[in-house]
């Protein structure tokens, strides 16, 4: 009995896209449809056959730049043979590669698995902004795509529109309808990054933000040290013969224990007017610290001002911590609302519909537009 094997997540990473190339001589070139495979490999860009790598390197890099994604790498099997006699260059494969990469990077790759055979593409990615430029042999490519039974959607650069329209007009046996430029609403189902992910992206977006983040981390580390451990540090620095205590004293018993543990004589510790010192400070509405010194068994104490540089620095750090977080949160929320605005964008495109054959030719100017049309049609 035949067994239906369900695609695994790993299988879905293999995206197939139809590209049309022209083989033969320039004057009598014939279109060939190649099912190219796009696969994310996480290491480096590779092209099969590798002798075409240099021809496709700039195309792949432009596609990745238009996605603002330089970390993800891909293996692209062009399905070409070393001895293929091509009369156009590989640049026209750019739009197919762009769609394959977009499918790998987005959540419509599963849907794409079911419909990829209905689509074919040809167009050169001209720059890192994703502009799609004119291709050669457009008529030969279109003829081949029209003849292929499974293909329903053919995407061609807008710069070839006049050439294609003129060619169709001369054809007597094609029943076609030119659709004027129309707008489609794009429902973006792509998941926006989580809030904390956006925060991290913002805080590490450039060298200045990295620097600000490091200062923020140091400030966060400094505050508890200054408020909870500073006395211990001070005492450590001055040795057992000196102990610094914050005033007012909240727990005299604990302070006395600490003095005792540090070798201060017991009979003198009990005579220290800790509470009176605190009350005095409260009366004068002041804060401060008291420095106890053990001078050969005789305790001396001195009230010192707590408003030193370390305290001022702690205020600055506290302010900086709050300010940095507030700016990041506001920027992150604004970015999210920006994404929502982007979701409501509409895309314009021209098309020609062949009523008898149920085929549609779409003219596109840039990668984003092409991807949006595919997404609109399949999702």
């Amino acid at each position, binding site marked *: 009995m035949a067994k239906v094997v369900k695609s695994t997540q*790993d*299988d879905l*990473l*293999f995206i*197939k896209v139809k590209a049309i190339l022209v083989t033969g001589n320039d004057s009598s070139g014939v279109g060939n449809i190649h*099912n190219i*495979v796009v*696969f994310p*490999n996480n*290491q480096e860009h*590779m092209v*099969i*056959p*590798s*002798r075409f790598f240099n021809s496709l390197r700039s195309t792949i890099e432009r596609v990745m730049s238009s996605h603002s994604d330089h970390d993800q790498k891909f*293996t692209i*099997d062009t*399905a070409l043979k070393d001895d293929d006699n091509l009369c156009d260059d590989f640049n026209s494969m750019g739009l197919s590669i762009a769609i394959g990469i977009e499918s790998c990077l987005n959540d419509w790759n599963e849907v794409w698995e079911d419909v990829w055979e209905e689509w074919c593409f040809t167009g050169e990615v001209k720059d890192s902004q994703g502009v799609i430029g004119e291709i050669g042999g457009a008529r030969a490519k279109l003829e081949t795509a029209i003849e292929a039974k499974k293909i329903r959607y053919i995407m061609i650069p807008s710069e070839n529109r006049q050439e294609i329209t003129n060619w169709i007009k001369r054809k007597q046996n094609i029943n076609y309808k030119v659709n004027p430029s129309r707008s489609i609403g794009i429902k973006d189902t792509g998941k926006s990054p989580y809030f904390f992910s956006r925060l991290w992206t913002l805080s590490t977006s450039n060298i200045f933000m990295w620097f600000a983040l490091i200062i923020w981390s140091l400030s966060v580390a400094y505050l508890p040290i200054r408020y909870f451990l500073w006395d211990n540090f001070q005492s450590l620095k001055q040795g057992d013969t000196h102990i610094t205590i914050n005033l007012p004293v909240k727990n005299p018993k604990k302070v006395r224990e600490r003095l005792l543990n540090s070798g201060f004589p017991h009979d003198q510790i009990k005579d220290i007017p800790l509470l009176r010192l605190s009350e005095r400070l409260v009366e004068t509405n002041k804060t401060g610290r008291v420095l106890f010194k053990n001078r050969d068994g005789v305790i001396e104490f001195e009230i010192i001002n707590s408003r030193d540089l370390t305290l001022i620095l702690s205020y600055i750090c506290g302010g900086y911590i709050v300010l940095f977080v507030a700016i990041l949160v506001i920027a992150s929320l604004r970015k999210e609302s920006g994404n929502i605005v982007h979701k409501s964008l509409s895309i314009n495109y021209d098309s020609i519909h062949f009523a008898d054959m149920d085929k549609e030719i779409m003219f596109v100017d840039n990668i984003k537009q092409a991807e949006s049309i595919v997404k609109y049609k399949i999702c």
Partner: protein
Amino acid sequence: MVKDMLSLEDIEIDLEELKRARKEGLPIADWRKTALRLFIKLCINGEEASCDLSKILSKKLAIESMAELDSYFNIFGFVGDGEKHKWQKLSNQLRMIYSS
């Protein structure tokens, strides 16, 4: 089944060595040795009637083997038509695995 699993592990190891040899560039002898080891292993597995290559290799392994061996043959060429013919046959099998 045990045989298949062992072969898969061997192929994975050979493939990783081949990747490393290519990235390090030199010595060329090492690159050649590792590439031919993987090539022969895949050819033998592919030729055995009882052992279908598509049952051993995952799509990922197939495309990575294809990319690495293709890169190797592009630089070093073939030692005779026999090797070229074998590679054409193997590359068709590999492409069929990851294109299916």
